[in-house]
């Protein structure tokens, strides 16, 4: 039973990193939601240049690994004079990356709102802009809840990647502990369990959100 005791003993040291993970995930999610909505709007816009820029952004982000993007922000940007602290760099990297994926969620949700509702709104005197913000976007948010939740959980797990840009999140903390105590099995088992403890309840919440979204539709 040494293994279990050792694993339990590591937890307090790892828990210190949880606030960092929360900070990363929440910060990056807010950035991804705002930017993702803007990209989605650009992609359905009637202005060709906006559509072009948004599509280009999407292709670049989806065509390169998140790990490379993080490394690029943290190690390459300083060479052109842009120095960013580890945690803000992590938030920026995760946020920019997830914005691309969330924009696709928003775009398909916006397109899924029946055209008939748009026409009804116009016929009632809504301007096109007001139709978008008052009729289409509120409904697409409801449809997007489930997918957004799933991306949020994926993002929490992806915070582990920021360990390579010197963010002392869970994995980095585990690495440091390991180099000091060499209790490799106990430490990384504890780290894995900690991720599970965070993500399992969240996936239950997502299931409930998805059920809600379906029943209101």
């Amino acid at each position: 039973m040494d293994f279990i005791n050792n694993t339990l003993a590591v937890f307090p040291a790892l828990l210190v990193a949880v606030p960092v993970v929360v900070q990363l995930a929440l910060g990056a999610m807010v950035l991804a939601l705002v930017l993702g909505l803007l990209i989605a709007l650009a992609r359905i816009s009637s202005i060709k240049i906006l559509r072009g820029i948004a599509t280009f952004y999407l292709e670049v982000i989806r065509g390169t690994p998140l790990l490379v993007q993080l490394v690029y922000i943290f190690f390459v940007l300083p060479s052109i004079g842009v120095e960013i602290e580890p945690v803000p760099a992590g938030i920026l990297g995760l946020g920019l990356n997830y914005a691309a994926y969330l924009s696709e969620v928003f775009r398909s949700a916006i397109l899924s709102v029946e055209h008939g509702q748009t026409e009804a709104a116009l016929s009632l005197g809504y301007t096109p802009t007001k139709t978008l913000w008052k009729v289409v976007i509120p409904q697409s948010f409801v449809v997007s809840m489930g997918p957004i939740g799933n991306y949020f959980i994926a993002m929490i797990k992806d915070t582990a990647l920021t360990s390579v840009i010197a963010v002392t999140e869970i994995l980095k903390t585990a690495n440091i502990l390991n180099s000091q105590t060499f209790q490799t099995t106990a430490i990384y088992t504890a780290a894995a369990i900690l991720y599970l403890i965070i993500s399992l309840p969240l996936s239950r919440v997502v299931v409930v959100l998805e059920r809600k979204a379906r029943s209101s539709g």
Partner: protein
Amino acid sequence: MADDTIINVRDVHKTFVSETKRPLWSRLTGRAHVQKRVEVLKGVDLTVHRGETVAILGSSGSGKSTLLRCINKLETIEAGRIYVNGHLIGYEEKDGELISEKASITAKKRTDIGMVFQQFNLFLNKTALGNVMAPLRDVKKMSATAAREIAIPTLELVGLGDKMENYPSKLSGGQKQRVAIARALAMEPSVMLFDEPTSALDPELVGEVLAVIKKIAQQGTTMVIVTHEMQFAREIADRIVVMDQGVIVEQGPPEAIFTRPQHPKTKALLSRSGMIPRESTDS
């Protein structure tokens, strides 16, 4: 133009242009797309006076929906003029040319035109009450209290006083259409346009919707109804308009149209729906 003219449609032309991809080989050797042009309205004139109920009849594809949709600029037009309450709809006129106007100006003019669609088109994320209140709040900028004071009696008028908190998914087709009618009516438009309001309904639900339309017609609301319900049109319309292939072929009081149709297309339409005995007419 007489003072009581609500809708004034003058020589309106509408052509749909659709682009279809040509087959691969033709694309390699020439243009990638072919333009298909269909002239759907070929010079339509229509006048509707205050308080009048006009029913538009016509076979499928004759341009009835398109005409209705042009009246509140859900479709563009190439030529002609459409006035509602004296306002030119959707365009500015400059040196005899039509120029598209700003969307916000069109939106303002549309508040004066109510429209009821075949597919109801309710806001699915709002209750019956929420649907009726939404445009009052969002477009007319009313307070919640003021909007509710208008929405509740309007829903009661269409017989839905006990369904106000239901979402559309918890309403029957007939109830949904009555909410849609209440939503348009609550904006107090000068005219209500109905595009086949009962065509998407189960037969047993048609009656309740027609009854509501009849009720608001009797209250003096100006309305234009596209319908295939001949008997209903005959009952409530002050005037019947018959369209065929993009033009109005005949119009007049229901009694005249139904008992002494003049145009062969009118005769064909009426005999096909069993309103007049079948006789030898050209198709």
